[in-house]
C-alpha cells in the first residue's frame, strides 16, 4: 500500500490529512493493536466455540503462570510509518461537526482517538441544540461502525420481470459510474431525496436536475406536510415554525410531542427547561394526547383523547375563548363551526370548570403561550384543518410571531407527501427513466397499497445511495453507497441563517462516496458538470470561503463548527389569512376505538433499526425494548380482558394484523396506537425479526398521508407474546423515591414536603480532603429523553444483550431512567422520570460485602469498581439498595462486536470480560483526564472541567457533576438547594448523588404524593411485564 501516492491525491485538505493513515483497514487494525489491545486480541477467532476454547486456555495459563516463570504470548508493537502531527496516540482530538438524526439536526463535537470517532456530544456553543444531543444523535456513532453497511458500490443483477429476486454484485465505482452516465443521457431523471438541510447539496441537486433534465422530490416518511399546507393557507408561505418554549408561560399540546418526537425535541427540551425554574419563571404545560408521550408525561396536567377529538378540541377552545369567555375576538363566521364543539370537554372527561380554566389561562397568557399540535398522531383525515385551527388559535392569542417564529422557523422540514405522490404519478405515467433515491427507504416506509414496488418496475434504472442493503436498495439496479455523515464533507442549515459545518472525522471506512460527489461525477461524465470543482469537498469549501471571505474564516468556521445566530427578536405578526378558516372541515368521524401510528424516541421511522443501541434503548414511555406494540388504555384492557403481551387482531379498513398489547396509563379508552419503524426485513442482522411492520395501516390516498384516527376493531386472539421491559413495576408503593410536589405547595411551604429521618453513626467516618466528587440530578429538568443512557453506553463500552436477555433481566445500562406513575391509572396519571446511576455512597453497602476488595472507596469518595479483581460473587448487587450494578453474564463483547464495530470502543475504559460486575464510575476516566489537564497547565481544577458522559449530552442540564469540597461548585449549590434530597435517605448509605425534587405547576392536588408518606396505592400491577415471566 503506497502511502506516498495516497498522500499526493489526498493532499487537498487540512482536515482530511488527519486521517491520512487510516486509508487502509490494515492501518486501523495496527493502530488498534498498539493502543487498545484487549477486545481485538481476544477476539482473534470469531466463533463462539473458539471463545470457549479461549476460556479453557486461560484457565490453563493461570495454572501455568503460578507454577513457574512462564512467558506470555508475544505481542507486537506496530508504530506509524509517518505519524500525522495531529495524532498523538493516547490523546483525544475533538472536531466540530454536525449530524442529523433523521428528525433533528445537531451541531456536535466529535471526540476521536487515533483517528477514530468515539463519542459525540452537542456543540455547547451552538445556539440550537447546545450541548444537548439526542439518543439517536449519539448513536450515529454506532451506525458509522455498523458492520452491515454496504461496503462497495453494488450492481444488482435482476430480472426485470421478477424484481426482488436479485443478487447484489460488488463493483468498483468506475463501472457503476459508466452505467449511470449512460443511463442519464436518456433524460427523465428524478431524484427522490430525504430531508436535507445542506445548502451545498441542495445547490448541487438542483443544478443536476436542471442540467440533466430532471426534478428533485423531497420526501421523508415522518414529515410535516400538514403544517406546510396549513401555513401556505394561513400565512401564504409554506413553513415550519420554531416554537420558543423559553418565552412561553402556558403551553397546550394536542398530541404535539415536542419533548420527544416532534420537530426538534432536543432543542425544544432545552428551551422548555429554561422556563421551568421552580424558584423563578415556570411555564405550565397541559397535554392532550391520544398516545402517551414524553410531552404528556412531562406535563403538569394531561388528558387522554382520541385522534378524532383533536380538531374538535381546538375548535372547542376557540369557542370557549372567543364566544363564551369573549377574551379574544374571532371572526364571526367561524362560530357556526365552533359552536358544535362547545361541549367537547365532556367527551374527554373534563368538567366545564377545568375547560374554562384552561381557556382563561390561555387568555391570560396572550403572546406568551403556545398551542401546538403535530406529529403522526395528528395526521388524521383532518390534519390540515387541525393545523389551520391551531394556527388560528395561536393567532387569536397573539402567539404567532411572539412565541411561534414563522419567518425564522426550522429548516429541513420541507418534504411533503404531495411531492411523493407527484413522483409516483410521474412514474406511473412513464415519465421517469432514471430514479435516484438518496438515503431513504420508501419500500419499507410506505404501505403495500402504495404499490411503490410496481412503480419501481416501470423505471428503467433505479439508483440508490442507501448505506444498507435495505428494502429499497434490494430493488434498486445500482447501489452507490453515500457513506456516513461522519465520513463525508458537508454543511447544514438547520435554522435559516444558522449554518453548521459537517466535517468528516474519519476516512470512509468502506468504498463509499458521498451523494454530492456522486452527482458531480455523474454530471461530469454526462458532460454537464454541475460544478467546476473536483470533489464535493472543494465545492463546499469554495462556497464557504467565498461566502465567509477567505480561507481563515473557513478554518474558523471549521473550528467553531457553526456560523450565524438564532433569531432572538420578536417577529412581526405573521398576518393570519382568515379565509384559510374556510378550509377547516371536520371529516373525521369518531369511532369507538381509533388507531394511530406514532414514532418512538429511539426508533423514529426505522432508519436506525440496525443500531443495537437504539433497539435496546428502553422507550422512555413504556420502557420496552426491541419491540413495538399496540398501546391501549387500562380500561380497554379490562374490557377486552387483555394484559401486556396479549396478542390481538387489529383490523382497519385498510389492513389487518396481529399485534401484542401494552397497557399504558394516560391513554384514552378509545385510542390505541402502534409505533412505526419496526418489522424491518432487510438491511442488516440486528433489525431482523424485531417488532412488527405496521406501515400497511398508512393510507396514502390523501394529500397528507393518513397515519391516525382509523376506525379499528380489536379482537383478542388468546395468544401471548413476550415484551421485554426493563422496568417491571411502575408504582412507587408509597415510598419516597422520585419526589415531587406542586408549585403551589412549594411556594407556600418553601420545601418539598419530605419525610425526614434522624440519621446517626457510631463513628466519625472517613475524611475526604482533596476532591470530593458529587453529582446532582434535577428531576424538574429531566424529561426522560434517555440521551444520557446512550451517551453512557457509548463512553463506557456497555454491551447490548438482546431481547432474550433483557427478558431475563440482564440489560447492562449503567444509568437507567426510572419512570413512575402516580394517580388513578384509569383516568390520567402523572409520570415522573428519575435517572438512577451508581450513587457512590460514602457508606457503600456493596463494598462491605465484597470478599475480594474488588469494589472499594477512593480517597476522593468514588466507589471504585475493579473489574480485574472481581470474581463475580454478585453479593454487591444484592446489597445495593439502588440496584445499579450490572453483571457480565457472558462475554458480551466477544459475541457482539463485529468488525468494524470494535472501533467504537473507548480505549480508556476496560472492556469487561465475563463474570465480572460493572457499574457507573462517575466516568472516572474523564475525572482523571480533567485532573491531568489541570496538572499539565499547573492550575487547580475548575468547576465544569470534568463532565460525565451523561451530563455532556443532557439537553436540559438536568445532571451536574463536580467537587463537593469546592464551595463554589454548581453541584454544591444544588446540594444546598431547598429541593435537594437523597434517594433512600433513611438507609444512610450516604450517597454522593442527590436529586432535586420535581415541581409540578398545577393547581390540583397530586394524585399520589410522596409527602403523604404511604397510603397512595394506585396499583399498576397489571403491567408488571418484566415480572410476568
Amino acid at each position: 500500500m503506497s502511502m506516498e501516492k495516497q498522500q499526493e491525491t489526498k493532499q487537498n485538505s487540512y482536515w482530511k490529512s488527519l486521517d491520512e493513515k487510516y486509508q487502509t483497514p490494515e492501518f486501523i487494525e495496527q493502530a488498534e493493536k498498539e493502543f487498545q489491545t484487549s477486545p481485538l486480541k481476544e477476539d482473534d477467532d470469531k466463533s463462539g466455540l473458539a471463545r470457549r476454547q479461549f476460556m479453557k486456555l486461560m484457565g490453563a495459563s493461570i495454572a501455568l503462570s503460578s507454577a513457574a516463570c512462564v512467558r506470555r504470548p508475544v505481542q507486537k508493537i506496530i508504530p506509524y510509518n509517518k505519524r500525522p502531527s495531529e495524532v498523538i496516540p493516547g490523546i483525544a482530538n475533538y472536531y466540530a461537526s454536525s449530524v442529523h438524526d433523521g428528525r433533528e439536526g445537531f451541531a456536535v463535537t466529535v471526540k476521536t482517538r487515533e483517528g477514530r470517532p468515539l463519542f459525540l456530544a452537542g456543540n455547547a456553543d451552538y445556539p440550537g441544540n447546545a450541548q444537548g444531543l439526542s439518543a439517536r444523535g449519539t448513536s450515529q456513532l454506532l451506525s458509522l461502525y455498523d458492520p452491515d453497511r454496504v461496503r462497495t458500490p453494488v450492481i444488482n443483477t435482476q430480472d426485470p420481470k421478477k424484481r426482488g429476486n436479485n443478487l447484489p454484485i460488488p463493483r468498483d465505482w468506475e463501472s457503476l459510474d459508466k452505467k449511470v452516465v449512460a443511463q442519464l443521457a436518456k433524460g427523465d431523471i428524478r431524484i427522490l431525496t430525504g430531508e436535507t438541510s445542506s445548502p451545498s447539496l441542495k445547490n448541487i441537486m438542483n443544478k443536476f436536475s436542471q442540467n440533466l433534465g430532471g426534478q428533485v422530490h423531497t420526501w421523508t416518511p415522518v414529515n410535516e406536510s400538514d403544517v406546510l399546507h396549513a401555513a401556505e393557507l394561513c400565512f401564504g408561505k409554506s413553513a415550519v415554525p420554531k416554537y420558543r418554549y423559553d418565552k412561553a408561560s402556558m403551553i397546550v399540546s394536542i398530541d404535539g410531542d415536542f419533548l420527544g418526537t416532534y420537530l426538534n425535541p432536543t432543542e425544544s427540551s432545552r428551551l422548555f427547561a429554561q422556563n421551568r425554574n421552580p424558584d423563578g419563571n415556570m411555564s405550565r404545560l397541559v397535554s392532550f394526547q391520544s398516545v402517551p408521550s414524553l410531552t404528556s408525561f412531562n406535563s403538569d396536567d394531561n388528558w387522554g383523547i382520541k385522534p378524532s377529538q383533536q380538531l374538535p378540541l381546538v375548535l372547542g377552545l376557540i369557542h370557549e375563548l372567543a364566544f363564551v369567555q369573549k377574551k379574544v375576538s374571532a371572526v364571526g363566521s367561524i362560530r357556526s363551526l365552533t359552536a358544535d364543539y362547545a361541549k367537547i370537554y365532556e367527551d374527554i372527561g373534563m368538567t366545564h370548570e377545568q375547560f374554562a380554566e384552561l381557556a382563561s389561562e390561555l387568555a391570560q397568557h396572550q403572546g406568551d403561550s403556545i398551542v401546538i399540535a403535530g406529529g403522526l398522531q395528528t395526521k388524521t383525515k383532518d390534519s390540515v384543518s387541525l393545523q389551520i385551527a391551531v394556527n388560528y388559535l395561536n393567532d387569536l392569542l397573539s402567539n404567532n410571531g411572539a412565541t411561534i417564529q414563522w419567518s425564522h422557523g426550522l429548516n429541513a422540514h420541507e418534504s411533503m407527501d404531495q411531492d411523493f405522490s407527484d413522483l409516483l404519478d410521474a412514474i406511473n405515467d412513464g415519465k421517469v427513466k432514471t430514479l435516484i433515491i438518496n438515503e431513504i427507504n420508501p419500500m419499507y416506509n410506505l404501505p403495500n397499497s402504495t404499490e411503490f414496488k410496481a412503480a419501481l418496475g416501470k423505471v428503467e434504472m433505479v439508483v440508490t445511495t442507501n448505506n444498507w442493503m435495505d428494502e429499497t436498495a434490494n430493488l434498486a439496479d445500482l447501489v452507490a453507497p453515500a457513506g456516513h455523515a461522519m465520513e463525508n464533507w458537508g454543511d447544514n442549515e438547520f435554522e435559516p441563517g444558522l449554518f453548521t459545518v459537517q466535517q468528516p472525522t474519519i476516512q470512509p471506512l468502506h468504498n463509499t462516496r458521498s451523494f454530492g460527489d456522486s452527482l458531480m461525477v455523474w454530471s461530469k461524465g454526462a458532460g454537464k458538470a454541475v460544478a467546476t470543482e473536483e470533489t464535493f469537498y472543494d465545492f463546499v469549501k469554495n462556497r464557504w470561503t467565498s461566502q465567509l471571505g477567505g480561507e481563515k474564516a473557513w478554518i474558523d468556521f471549521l473550528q467553531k463548527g457553526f456560523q450565524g445566530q438564532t433569531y432572538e427578536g420578536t417577529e412581526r405578526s405573521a398576518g393570519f389569512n382568515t379565509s384559510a378558516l374556510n378550509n377547516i372541515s371536520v371529516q373525521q368521524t369518531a369511532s369507538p376505538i381509533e388507531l394511530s401510528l406514532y414514532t418512538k424516541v429511539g426508533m423514529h421511522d426505522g432508519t436506525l433499526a440496525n443500531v443495537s443501541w437504539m433497539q435496546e434503548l428502553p422507550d422512555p414511555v413504556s420502557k420496552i425494548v426491541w419491540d413495538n406494540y399496540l398501546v391501549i388504555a387500562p380500561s380497554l384492557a379490562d374490557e377486552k380482558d387483555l394484559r401486556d403481551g396479549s396478542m390481538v387482531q387489529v383490523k382497519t379498513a385498510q389492513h389487518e394484523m396481529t399485534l401484542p398489547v401494552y397497557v399504558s396509563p394516560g391513554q384514552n379508552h378509545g385510542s390505541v396506537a402502534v409505533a412505526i419503524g419496526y418489522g424491518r426485513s432487510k438491511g442488516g442482522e440486528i433489525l431482523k425479526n424485531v417488532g412488527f411492520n405496521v406501515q400497511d395501516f398508512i393510507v396514502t390516498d390523501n394529500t397528507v398521508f393518513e397515519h391516525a384516527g382509523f376506525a379499528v376493531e380489536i379482537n383478542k386472539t388468546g395468544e401471548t407474546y413476550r415484551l421485554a421491559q426493563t422496568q417491571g413495576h411502575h408504582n412507587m408503593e408509597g415510598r419516597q423515591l422520585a419526589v415531587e410536589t406542586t408549585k403551589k405547595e412549594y411556594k407556600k411551604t418553601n420545601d418539598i414536603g419530605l419525610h425526614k429521618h434522624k440519621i446517626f453513626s457510631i463513628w466519625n467516618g472517613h475524611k475526604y480532603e482533596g476532591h470530593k466528587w458529587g453529582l446532582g440530578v434535577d428531576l424538574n429538568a429531566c424529561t426522560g429523553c434517555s440521551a444520557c443512557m446512550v451517551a453512557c453506553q457509548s463512553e463506557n463500552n456497555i454491551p447490548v444483550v438482546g431481547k432474550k436477555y433483557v427478558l431475563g433481566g440482564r440489560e447492562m445500562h449503567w444509568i437507567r431512567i426510572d419512570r413512575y406513575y402516580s394517580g388513578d391509572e384509569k383516568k390520567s396519571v402523572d409520570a415522573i422520570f428519575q435517572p438512577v446511576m451508581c450513587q457512590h455512597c460514602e457508606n457503600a453497602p456493596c463494598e462491605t460485602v465484597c470478599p475480594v476488595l474488588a469494589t472499594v472507596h477512593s480517597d476522593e469518595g468514588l466507589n471504585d469498581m475493579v473489574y480485574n479483581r472481581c470474581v463475580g460473587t454478585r453479593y454487591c448487587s444484592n446489597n445495593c439498595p439502588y440496584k445499579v450494578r450490572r453483571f457480565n453474564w457472558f462475554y458480551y463483547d466477544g459475541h457482539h462486536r463485529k468488525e468494524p464495530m470494535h472501533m467504537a470502543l473507548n480505549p480508556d475504559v476496560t472492556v469487561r470480560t465475563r463474570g465480572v460486575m460493572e457499574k457507573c464510575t462517575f466516568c472516572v476516566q474523564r475525572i482523571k483526564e480533567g485532573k491531568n489537564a489541570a496538572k499539565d497547565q499547573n492550575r487547580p481544577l475548575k468547576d465544569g472541567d470534568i463532565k460525565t458522559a451523561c451530563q455532556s449530552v443532557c439537553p436540559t442540564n438536568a445532571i451536574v457533576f463536580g467537587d463537593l469540597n469546592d464551595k463554589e461548585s454548581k453541584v454544591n449549590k444544588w446540594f444546598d438547594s431547598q429541593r435537594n434530597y437523597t434517594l433512600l435517605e433513611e438507609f444512610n448509605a450516604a450517597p454522593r448523588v442527590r436529586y432535586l425534587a420535581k415541581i409540578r405547576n398545577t393547581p390540583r392536588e397530586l394524585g399520589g404524593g410522596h409527602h403523604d408518606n404511604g397510603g397512595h396505592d394506585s396499583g399498576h400491577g397489571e403491567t408488571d411485564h418484566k415480572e410476568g415471566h
Partner: protein
Amino acid sequence: MAKRQSGVAGIWSDDEKILEAAAKMRDAGYKKFDAITPFPVHGMEEAVGIKRSGIPYVTFVAGVTGCCLGLYMQYWMSAVSWPINVGGKPMFSIPAFIPVTFEITILFAALFSVGAMFFLNGLPKVDPPIIDPDLTSHKFALWVPDDEVGYSVEKVEAFLKELGAEEVKRMAEY
C-alpha cells in the same frame, strides 16, 4: 511408648472379667501393663492406673493462640499492610472480625488436639504387630511389656492364667 518391646499377653472374651483381672494386676504391683480392648471399657483407666489425659491443655493453648493470631492477621491485613476504605467503615472493624477469629480459634484448637492425640498415641504406626485379630472385635487382652517391674515371662504367664485368661501369648515384639 513408641518403641517395640517383647512381652506377654493374656486374652479374655468378657469385658467384665478383664476389668476385674486388670484391677487385680494393678493391686499386685504391676505398673506398666496395659489393656487392649475393642472399645473403651468403662473403668479400665482406673483399673490399669492411667491418669487423666493432658490434651485439654493443648486444646486451650492452641485455641488462645488461634484466637490471637486470627485477630492479629485481620488487623494487620486490613489496617496495617494496606488500609483501604471499605464501605466507610473503620480500618480495624472489630465486630466484623469476630467470626473469622472464632473460626480460626476452633480450627487451631481442634487440629492441635487431634495432633496431640496422634502424637501421644504414637499414631500413625506402620504395620504394628498384633496379639490377636479379635482384639478389635470381641476379645480383650492384658499386655505386660518386658520392662514391667519385676518382669519375668513365666511369672507373668502364670499370673495371667491365675487371673483367668483364656489364652496366654508370648510376643517377641509388640
